[in-house]
């Protein structure tokens, strides 16, 4: 009974919804990154690594310049740089995209771990370097309940939704989007129509660097103001699950990200509920909720969503 009451209290608390949004934000960005890359036919599991590198880079540059937005910008630059390696290996050299992606994750983990000492003088975690302030939207913040959820929150939350709207438009309403989808579905056909298959794929992968870089910046300077080793914590993979569940559609990926965000917000709120006692031994189980959800989703929906037909298949031109 106490458990049900605790659950009920979580659901009527605006904080639960606010945390849902902030937890979903990095997933939305990263899953958009996945969408851009995979609809053009390049599997990108490097998202996890790109996020980590983005989180690190933004902290470094925020610390150096004192300006968080320069930090955010540099996160995007580093994301594009890492994505470029992925594009180069998998498009130009037709490498195995899963192997390449895994390698890039390991490289990102290696670089960020290694640079902690020389730059910050200590491993593990940096000091607080600065943080993107929450944005208070006057009229909106005063509305009861709703105001507490979206009236005053990180600008990244608004940016995430704007990015979804932009991406939906780009992918479904412009000729570039049409070409992206055709290249991921049947590159040979696109080629016979004079479409530059490699160019479009490069675009998709580099854009995934932009979005995953932003996701990383949010994790560090967007949310906590410092960098911790391995702080992406598997979110890149959850974002891939969100992309699949969302049927490779930006809006779908957003909805799926919100579901994952809600599950971690729920775990978070239940643990801090005063009605039930969550012991330290059980806590890791709560933290697993989003991952368990991921497994269920991937197992249950993979067959049902339409995977771009040429996803993961390098395109090699004839002589």
């Amino acid at each position, binding site marked *: 009974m106490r458990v049900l009451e605790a659950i009920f209290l979580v659901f009527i608390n605006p904080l639960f919804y606010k945390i849902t949004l902030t937890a979903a934000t990095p997933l939305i960005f990263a899953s958009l990154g996945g969408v851009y890359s995979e609809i053009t036919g390049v599997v990108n599991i490097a998202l996890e690594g790109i996020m980590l590198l983005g989180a690190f880079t933004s902290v470094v540059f925020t610390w150096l310049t004192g300006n968080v937005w320069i930090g955010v910008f540099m996160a995007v630059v580093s994301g594009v740089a890492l994505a470029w390696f992925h594009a180069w290996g998998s498009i130009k050299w037709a490498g195995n995209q899963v192997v390449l992606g895994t390698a890039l994750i390991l490289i990102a983990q290696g670089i960020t771990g290694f640079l902690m000492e020389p730059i910050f003088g200590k491993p593990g975690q940096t000091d607080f370097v600065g943080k993107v302030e929450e944005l208070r939207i006057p009229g909106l913040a005063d509305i009861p309940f709703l105001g507490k959820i979206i009236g005053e929150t990180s600008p990244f939350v608004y940016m995430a939704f704007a990015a979804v709207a932009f991406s939906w438009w780009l992918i479904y309403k412009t*000729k570039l989007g*049409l*070409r992206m989808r055709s290249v991921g*579905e049947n590159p040979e*056909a696109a*080629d016979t*129509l*004079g479409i530059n298959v490699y160019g479009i794929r490069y675009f998709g992968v580099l854009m995934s660097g932009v979005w995953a870089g932003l996701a990383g910046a949010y994790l560090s300077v967007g949310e906590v103001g410092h960098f911790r080793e391995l702080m992406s914590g598997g979110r890149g993979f959850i974002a891939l699950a969100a992309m699949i569940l969302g049927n490779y559609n930006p809006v779908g990926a957003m909805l799926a990200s919100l579901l994952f965000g809600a599950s971690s917000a729920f775990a978070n709120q239940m643990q801090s509920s005063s009605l039930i006692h969550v012991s330290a031994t059980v806590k890791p189980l709560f933290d697993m909720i989003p991952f368990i959800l991921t497994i269920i989703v991937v197992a249950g929906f993979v067959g049902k969503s339409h995977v771009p037909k040429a996803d993961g298949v390098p395109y090699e031109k*004839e002589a």
Partner: protein
Amino acid sequence: MYAVEMVNIVKRFPGVLANDHVTVRVKKGEIHAIVGENGAGKSTLMNQLYGLYHPDEGEIFINGEKVVIRGPKDAIKLGIGMVHQHFMLVDTLTVAENVVLGSEPVKGLNFDMKKARQEVKELSEKYGLFVDVDAKIEDIPVGMQQRVEIIKTLYRGANIIILDEPTAVLTPQEVEELFEIMRKLKNDGKTILFISHKLHEVMEISNRITVMRLGKVTGELETSKTNPKEIARHMVGRDVVLRVSKEPHEPKDVIFEIKDLVVKDNRGLTAVNDVSFNVRKGEIVGIAGVAGNGQTELVEAITGLRKIESGHIYFEGKEVAGFTPRQLRELGMSHIPEDRLKHGLIEEFEAYYNIILGQHYRNPFANGAFLNHNNIFKYSEDLMEEFDVRPRKIDHLGGNFSGGNQQKLVVGREIRTNPKFLVVAQPTRGLDVGAIEFIHKQILKMRSLDVGILLISMELEEIFSLSDRILVMYEGEIMGEVKPEETTIEEVGLMMTGHRIEEARRG
């Protein structure tokens, strides 16, 4: 005035000389047929005209001017359009989107869907190319897909249109419609390059013919001054029997039987409705019918690829409904599928793996978990020799064989398993006259060895020349059973359009 001149074109692939100093001259406004055996190099030649491959030697002139075609983009600019042997469509996009892809109309920053639909509609009406502009490619029949491909070339303003084996996948009615469209295009001043293995089609529609064999041009003929026999002789280098003769052969006991079979299609509609028939040892039962009347589903159900709703399937008297394809194979059933790329072979696999598919797990090709490559190679060499698969390279990739040679690989593989019962669907689709003769002889040889054979074909010629009994299928039902020597093409044609045998007999 020549619209297209390809002079002394040489194209090599690793170990294959696909085009050996080929010269083709196509006059403006004519329909020029290119015929030749499977693997003669027709598609390769056309792909060079469209910029997908680049000649190693030789020159290309368009409207008298020398050109270098680096890619499809250049070809499109020169007014060349190509409908490929295997369609180049994006299944998940709509017809209109497929047509405009690569040269999309825009309105501001947006892709202008309205204009795209409008333009496709206009072209479609102008040339009588009926298409549903908003349907997705995956939902429309092959015939319409082909019209979409033709509209694609017209949308880009093509004056020279290449049709690589357009009729191989069409029903006779659709072929007539296509010819109607081709005549309209010709009257509009377009030049058409037409590839086909069916000599009667070439005779009907073309003005001139270039014949190829083993990568070389072996003849240039005026259609009005030649005949199918002469063309065939140029193609194959000998006289060809255009229709094999069948020895009488007494069938034995029933090997295969189905009773009251009901099967649904992918959309959940009944595709095979209460069908019953049997096949005896040493007998060929032909199933005639216009494509899409349940033949595909029937074959899939029989071969264990599709689940049945109700009814019985017996193999040597034993119920086998619900058996997996492997179980059926082990009982002695073989299957030559209608779609060689989908169900017949694996494009990324070498010929030798394709040749042993289905037997890969057992002696002599595997010992326990390991493949025995020596045996696999030896067997593959023999098989490719026997079935005259070209090029004779066992490590050639499945997808790199010409269409007809892919078919020979599949046919060879299935026949060499020494089946007791053989299901053959569209065995000669896309094959040249020589190969058809060969495969027909193989099927008749199986019959003389007392194999039971179920033959599904859209080609009435084929059905008539091979079958001992003919069943006609229409909308999932059997319209009647006839013997080829006691019926006429007209009668079967009537049954194919939904007349029961009694009505057809009454005329």
